[in-house]
């Protein structure tokens, strides 16, 4: 907290705290390279799913399984969390510690409720006979949506630990790049979900 008030008193704090130091600049640059690689990872999983989605081995297909109301709720939650994440970064650059932590906290809570919905959905599917082992459709579905869910889980843990660090050290030139990069990660998770709800759920309902 002491660090935070110190920062607030300094009028020479730059507009973009996350790229104020060379270290911060490199963190953000490196993270974009990582996001480019992640795009390729998810594209391969999407390609695999789209190639195999009709191979259900007599099990239930997407048209029977998917519940668009649940997907719409999950989409609304994740989209909103993307907004709260960007608002947190705005408050960070205004050196408004309390508002930043509040928005980050809401982001984490929304992420956790998204994850809860996904776990409920997967349990429901397993009871319907749609498992990782049941068919090529099942394997490719869980590989794709599960990898996204794992990213959400990691994002929740990451942002939570950064909130603890920010509570200890305040908003500084060291903590700001970390928080900013975790926010980029969170937006990327949302970007991937946009394609999941379009190409998995909506396309699955069409047949």
């Amino acid at each position, binding site marked *: 907290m002491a660090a935070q008030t110190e920062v607030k008193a300094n009028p*020479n*704090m730059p507009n973009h705290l996350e790229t104020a130091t060379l270290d911060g600049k490199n963190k953000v640059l490196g993270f974009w390279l990582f996001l480019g690689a992640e795009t390729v990872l998810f594209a*391969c999983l999407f390609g695999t799913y789209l190639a195999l989605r009709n191979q259900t081995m007599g099990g239930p297909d997407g048209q029977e399984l998917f519940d668009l109301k649940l997907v719409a709720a999950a989409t609304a939650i994740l*989209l909103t969390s993307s907004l709260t*994440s960007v608002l947190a970064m705005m408050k960070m650059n205004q050196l408004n510690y309390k508002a930043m932590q509040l928005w980050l906290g809401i982001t984490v809570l929304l992420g956790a409720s998204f994850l809860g919905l996904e776990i409920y959905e997967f349990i429901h599917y397993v009871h319907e006979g749609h498992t990782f082992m049941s068919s090529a459709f099942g394997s490719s579905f869980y590989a794709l949506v599960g990898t996204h869910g794992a990213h959400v889980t990691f994002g929740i843990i990451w942002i939570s630990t950064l909130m603890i660090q920010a509570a200890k050290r305040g908003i500084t030139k060291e903590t700001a790049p970390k928080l900013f990069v975790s926010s980029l990660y969170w*937006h990327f998770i949302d970007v991937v979900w946009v394609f999941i709800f379009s190409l998995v759920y909506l396309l699955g309902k069409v*047949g």
Partner: protein
Amino acid sequence: MAQQPNTSNHAPSGSSESATKHVLSFLLMIALTVVAFALVMYDIVPTNMILPLILVLATIQVFLQLFTFMHLNQKGTAFYTIFMVTGILIAVVSAVGIILM
């Protein structure tokens, strides 16, 4: 420190404007999502038109995310864009390759 001339560092100024911008692009994303869901739920267009339409809607939404929430519209982001565009190019080639295999 305090007496140094300081022109570019007024963090609070213009902040409400950028919050409005973020909320507006968020509302636009919600609208695009609602249109995509409505296309599928209410049989508005022929079935063979749905895939290209929802792909276009998803792409617009992703560009909104990249350029507003992820700040690719700002100066000094050329390398970020190069990394992302390279990633997307390899991604599209890989995905299309796997689907057609």
